[in-house]
């Protein structure tokens, strides 16, 4: 089966770079499943999970991104994200604490941070896409 090259880039480093089978990215208007030969798309992302699978559809890695952009063409998929963490390394308790703190504050920035934190929590709790 064909593969597609996938780059996950954050401002600080190149997080992931390999040939993979399938990628699911959290597009602004809904999740995008990307297989080799996908048509050319440029999409902005909402905070959520980027899931990477190998050719036999088993999950290799899942990342949490706080938003960003994806550029997709038939051979290559590039995701630019401001902050990238592996979902496994997220800690539920510290995020819950963060959410509580943020809920007591106000302002536009806090709102954004809150929505990112909530998305993080969701990313830990949900398990759809673990198997496709």
């Amino acid at each position, binding site marked *: 089966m064909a593969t597609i090259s996938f*780059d996950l*880039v*954050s*401002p*600080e*480093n*190149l997080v992931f770079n390999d040939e993979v089978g399938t990628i699911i990215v959290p*597009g*602004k*208007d809904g999740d*995008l499943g990307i297989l080799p030969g996908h*048509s*050319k*798309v*440029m*999409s*902005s992302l909402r905070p959520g999970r980027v899931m990477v699978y190998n050719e036999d559809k088993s999950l290799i890695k899942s990342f949490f991104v706080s*938003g*960003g*952009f994806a*550029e997709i063409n038939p051979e290559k998929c*590039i995701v*630019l994200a*401001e*902050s990238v963490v592996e979902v496994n390394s997220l800690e539920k308790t510290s995020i819950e604490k963060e959410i509580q703190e943020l809920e007591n504050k106000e302002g536009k*920035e806090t709102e954004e941070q809150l929505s990112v934190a909530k998305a993080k929590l969701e990313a830990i709790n949900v398990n759809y896409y673990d198997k496709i």
Partner: protein
Amino acid sequence: MPSLKDIKTQINSVGSTKKITSAMKMVAASKLRRSQEKAEAARPYSSRLEEMLYSLASSAASGEGIIKLLTGTGNDQNYIVVPVSADRGLCGGFNSSINRETFKLVKSLEGNGKKVQLMPVGKKSRDFFNRVMKDQIIKSFVDLNVSSTGYESALNISNKLQELYFEGKFDKCILVFNKFKSAISQEVTQQQLIPLDVSNSEKEEEKDNSSNAIYDYEPDEETILKDLLPKNVSIQVFKVLLESDAGEQGARMAAMDNATRNAGEMIDSLTLKYNRTRQAFITKELIEIISGAESI
């Protein structure tokens, strides 16, 4: 004539200075490598983002809201100048050239009747402009430590800039920073950050060659552009901070290398002087002994 002991003390003190400068050189060299790696790592992100931006820039129709980061406010009366210097000295002309260049820029802008405000980054430029044009500073950023804090520090600066921009506090933002050319040379560079300068001929050509036109955009071009522009400001600031950090280490390395060499030369000449003086003393004492023996 200095006594032997005086010269000895002097040699020792120059010797310990030499030790310090050579240690600083080593430290700067290893930090330089690290900063260079950081700058290298940031490159894929910023170049991708730029490419996306250039392919979208043409779709920006009117100057409303966030798009203003691209199209400008339509005025160019109020400027904000951001000199990026180091927090520490002992790095040759690194900081002073930034300060000098910024000062010149501000004066020439003011000469053209523009209003200029300053937002120095780094202790050395903050201190300098605190002395010469204190009332024009609106905010300063020090102790950024970009190589350890990373992207966060750039975000702080760019958020502040955008906040001021959308409050209508300024029309154009210019960064003055040391561009990292090689380990031993830096070039003072001015870069217009806001509004974004898309009149880059090189990029235009690239754009024509690539097949960006057939991309599908989701949700749509304008929404993506609105997300992209603020991020681009941050990443540009981040890039500049990293360049400046690498430049600082390079400049310090070169300065300390020079200092070490000078100290070595100084020790050589002082040692020569010490030996001559010692020889002179011995000769003198010999003459005294001989003439004393003769007179008996």
